[in-house]
């Protein structure tokens, strides 16, 4: 199993009045709540936590992209990745660039190729559509987002692999010359990951291209179903999934005992799920963002993330967050690895309002007592 440490860079200072108001923490939450002085301290701390994953023996560190939200202070993952190149030795995974949100995906092809060359081939390139709220942020038609994503992906991969210059006249992007300098150092291109919340279309898309499928924010029941459909999809495309192609991203909180871990994690789980992820349904799933099939599924589950108040204990019980002693969490992970056959674990050891001290404790317990047994 390979281990990656992920950071979402949350703003941890929203108060309970905001949580209880039910107002969104995305798009419309005024940025007067953001204090740049505290923000600078946070960047310094969060970057040191990403470096700490690398120093503690994780295979890689992960950054991502979100916009106009207290949920994550990383609108530009490639900038963060650039600062990490000189401070880390392992992989730097971009999970991912929200390519459909860009004015031009050719810029992503250039930036990721730069990072790949600068890091001497340590880049994993995740591609995402951007979540629904980000279509409000950038005033982009959500009904076209899937098409934009696919076209942007095709353009970037071709720009990385086919000698330029060539022309590109697609539905969404039109270029007389595609000819990016530099090209990636990894051949034919950096590994591509597909982080997703489990849409059937994305599973199929990633399996067909032999990408690593990374499941984020999910309960164990859904994780089982989703990994099973990914394996089925790879078989349909004529191959058996490599374990490392199945990735699970999960917040982890460790303490000496299960009781202490659950008690310690509770307020942070509450903050992550009930404050930071909070937004109205039409912000999360704007008109046309989901296919008709996905929309029907979301409708039948009704109480997804971002809507009603979720019980932290229930979330931990269902596996949205792994909180426990090193022994319990290690056993749970070994059991799930054997049952589900996944070989990529992306741990989020700082989440919500988890403090630096708590992060350090989880990190040392994890690397000393959990990771060795799973390797």
């Amino acid at each position, binding site marked *: 199993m390979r281990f990656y440490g992920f950071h979402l860079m949350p703003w941890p200072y929203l108060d309970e009045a905001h949580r209880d108001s039910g107002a969104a923490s995305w798009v419309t939450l005024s940025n007067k709540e953001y204090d740049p002085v505290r923000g600078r301290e946070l960047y310094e701390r969060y970057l040191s936590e990403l470096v700490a994953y690398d120093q503690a023996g994780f295979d890689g560190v992960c950054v991502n992209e979100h916009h106009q939200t207290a949920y994550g202070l990383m609108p530009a993952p490639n900038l963060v990745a650039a600062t990490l190149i000189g401070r880390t030795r392992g992989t730097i995974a971009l999970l991912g660039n929200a390519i459909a949100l860009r004015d031009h995906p050719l810029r992503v092809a250039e930036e990721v190729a730069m990072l790949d060359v600068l890091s001497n081939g340590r880049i994993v390139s995740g591609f995402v559509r951007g979540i629904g709220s980000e279509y*409000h942020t950038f005033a982009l*038609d959500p*009904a076209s987002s899937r098409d934009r994503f696919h076209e942007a992906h095709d353009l970037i991969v071709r720009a990385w692999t086919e000698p330029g210059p060539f022309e590109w006249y697609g539905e969404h992007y039109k270029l007389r010359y595609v000819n990016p300098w530099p090209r990636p150092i990894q051949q034919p291109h950096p590994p591509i990951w597909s982080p997703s919340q489990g849409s059937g279309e994305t599973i199929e898309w990633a399996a067909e291209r032999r990408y690593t499928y990374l499941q984020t924010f999910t309960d164990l029941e859904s994780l089982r179903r989703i990994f099973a459909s990914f394996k089925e999809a790879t078989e349909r495309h004529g191959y058996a999934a490599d374990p490392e192609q199945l990735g699970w991203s999960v917040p982890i909180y460790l303490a000496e005992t299960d009781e202490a871990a659950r008690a310690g994690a509770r307020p942070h789980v509450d903050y992550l799920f009930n404050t930071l992820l909070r937004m109205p*349904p039409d912000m999360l799933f704007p008109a046309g963002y989901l296919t*008709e099939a996905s929309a029907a599924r979301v409708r039948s589950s009704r109480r997804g993330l971002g809507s009603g108040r979720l019980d932290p204990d229930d979330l931990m019980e269902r596996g949205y967050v792994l909180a426990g002693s090193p022994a319990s969490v290690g056993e749970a992970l070994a059991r799930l690895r054997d049952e589900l056959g996944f070989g990529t674990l992306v741990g989020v050891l700082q989440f919500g309002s988890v403090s630096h001290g708590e992060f350090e404790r989880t990190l040392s317990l994890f690397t000393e007592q959990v990771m060795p047994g799973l390797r």
Partner: protein
Amino acid sequence: MPVTEQVVDVRGSAVRVLADGEGSPLLYLHDEEDLGEWPAVLEGLSASFAVVRPDLAGFNGSAERPGCSSVHDLAFFMLDVMDALALERASVVGAGLGGWLAADLATIEPGRVERLALVGALGLRPPGGHETDLFLLDPVQAATALYHTPSAVEQAVLAAERLAGDLELHARYLRNRAAMAHLGWNPYLHDPGLGHRLHRIAAPTLVVWGADDRVVSSRTAERYAGGIGKARTVTIAGTGHLPHLEAPEAVRAEIAPFLAARTWGVA
């Protein structure tokens, strides 16, 4: 005579068309909330007009039209629909999104529009901007933003709640919303170019607005009327963005004599 329903092939795209009545041709272009019905405002008009009400491309029973990514594109396709229905020249009534479409269409082929009535039309940016973001509202919230009188709001909320319980209707609602997003997400519910073309409209025009429209403020009516020139505005008291649904009799009482008039100025 009952309303007839047919699906017409328009240059390869299926278009669902409701029709009723006899007389001079009247094309009705529906609003963005329409779920495929024959609105009450049309009752009575069919006594003196041959009323034709197509589902807009991508809405209700009509197929998406490839290559249509703006209301302007849709206006060209609506001219194709008029050709297919042998509507050489017709009076056009458009509400909300349909009003935007009607105005755009009348700038392209002014000679094909006999008389034009716009009801709470989208398409222009209201003075001071838009108050609400329809795309952030769920159906129940939208009901309170779209209507004005408490009883109309209450009825709309009930209908929105019924929508949640009706799989087929809800799927239609989502499809319509996606079509609307495709047309009106950016720029939000307007076309910056439309105002510069409005002077091309030749038909006598009636601009009808709800006095308490919170989607597109009633001050937008003046922008339409000013741009078109040969236009008169009417405000319907006690109604919001959809006066033709909230007060169909009051709207019909304005529209019917206007459409029936042979010359400008006769009401």
